[in-house]
């Protein structure tokens, strides 16, 4: 599958982006800060405390405006819609927009979930116990179903199921009755198959890949009478993951 190389490129990109900043001497950085203070582009607060100087848990319980998110996501969909050939292409683009977010979100998720259990609020790098990375599929899916969903949407997902068919033991389903990203979106009739929660599917994919589980995630409409925008995220694990899962099961790893 194409997922692991994508993961590798993402990492190399992020490394390349950070590297020049580290190489720069301190004086040059302060000069830059002064420069950016004069230019209207980047705003630096008067006390020089940017968003990077804040503690990561500072915005932990803060909430964002739903309306501004709706407008932002709407523009993202409009952007992804340019020069696409079809619905699948559009969903792929949305998925690709969510993927890097999932990779980055994973670190924040681990950081925040460990800092609640231990009292290591002072510094993140010297926290005593390393965060528990999920090794088994079920642990990973519970992490997505619960903590990840709460981090993103403020509530847990509605259902977590395993495929009953013996042909596809690698398929799992996460159900959200009313996905937040789709609240204000109604797809036109000729695109009724489209589900913009493909973006969320991309986030899930990024989280799984970040944990070392090769996955394909897709979003599907499954409307019911009560929940017209009910969405099922189909998580398909790759064959290597299933093989490893068998080995771990024999070894008794939890």
């Amino acid at each position, binding site marked *: 599958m194409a997922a692991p190389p994508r993961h590798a490129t993402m990492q190399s990109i992020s490394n390349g982006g950070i590297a020049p900043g580290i190489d720069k001497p301190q004086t040059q950085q302060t000069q830059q800060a002064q420069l950016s203070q004069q230019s209207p582009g980047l705003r630096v607060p008067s006390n020089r405390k940017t968003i990077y100087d804040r503690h990561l848990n500072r915005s932990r319980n803060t909430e964002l405006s739903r*309306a501004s998110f*709706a*407008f932002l*996501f*709407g*523009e993202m*969909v*409009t952007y992804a*819609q340019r020069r696409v050939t079809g619905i699948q292409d559009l969903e792929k683009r949305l998925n690709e927009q969510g993927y890097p977010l999932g990779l980055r979100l994973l670190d924040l998720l681990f950081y925040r979930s460990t800092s609640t259990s231990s009292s290591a609020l002072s510094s993140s790098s010297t926290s005593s116990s390393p965060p528990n990375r999920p090794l088994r599929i079920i642990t990973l899916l519970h992490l997505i179903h619960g903590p990840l969903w709460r981090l993103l949407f403020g509530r847990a997902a509605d259902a977590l199921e395993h495929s009953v068919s013996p042909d596809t033991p690698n398929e799992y389903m996460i159900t959200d009755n009313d996905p937040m990203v789709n609240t*204000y*979106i*109604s*797809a*036109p*009739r000729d*695109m009724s198959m489209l589900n*913009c929660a493909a973006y969320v599917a991309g986030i899930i994919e990024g989280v799984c890949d970040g944990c070392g589980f090769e996955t394909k995630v897709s979003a599907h409409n499954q409307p019911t009478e009560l929940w*017209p*925008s009910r969405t099922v995220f189909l998580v398909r694990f790759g064959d290597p993951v299933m093989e490893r899962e068998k080995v771990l099961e024999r070894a008794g790893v939890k």
Partner: protein
Amino acid sequence: MAVPAYRGTNNLQSLRTPNTSRATLWRSKQPQFDSSHNLPEYLEAYQSASPPLASPVTLGVFSLIIINKAGGLIYQREFQAGLRNLSTNDYLVLAGTFHGVHAITRSITPKIPISQPAPFPATSSTGTTVPAASGYSYPNPGVPVSGLDYLETDKFRMTCFQTLTGTKFLLFTDPLTGHVDTIIQKIYELYADYVMKNPFYQIEMPVRCEAFDRHLGAWLRGRT
């Protein structure tokens, strides 16, 4: 709907522009108006006839029309069965006609003369229109001229709400329906949410948003 819309023009009872009746200035300047009445006579008749407004009564919301700022029909929906159907073309004509009528009513909003100490007899002798323009003003200068606000017949009441961007919401209700302003505000809210936040909606184009239809229907059903 719109049966009454065409039939009712014969027994049209009132055509009100809000600027004239909202204005306290107007009343105080004109003592022949009975200023103790807050409402025009015809409205009082309805008020006394209607049941006390203990609960927000939604006797009937007949139909909703949304007109874009160019006068084109972008949304039309009926909420009650048994209304005579108009063809799509007729609806387009209705929207365009109303757009024009609304513009006319806005420009004919009456102005009242400003009572001046009259020290300028010389200006009128020049023959210019300067004294006429400066000597008259709208009854309430603080309120912008809004044009036709509602139209009431014995069969229905048509309320027009214009947004700041020029989109017009036309709501046809039963004349006894109370709290029409609240209903229109809620419809505007739903429009702002489920139409304007939808990335697949093209601005100024006909509204085809399934979520808007669903929430609008559910909310109006919840009220009645």
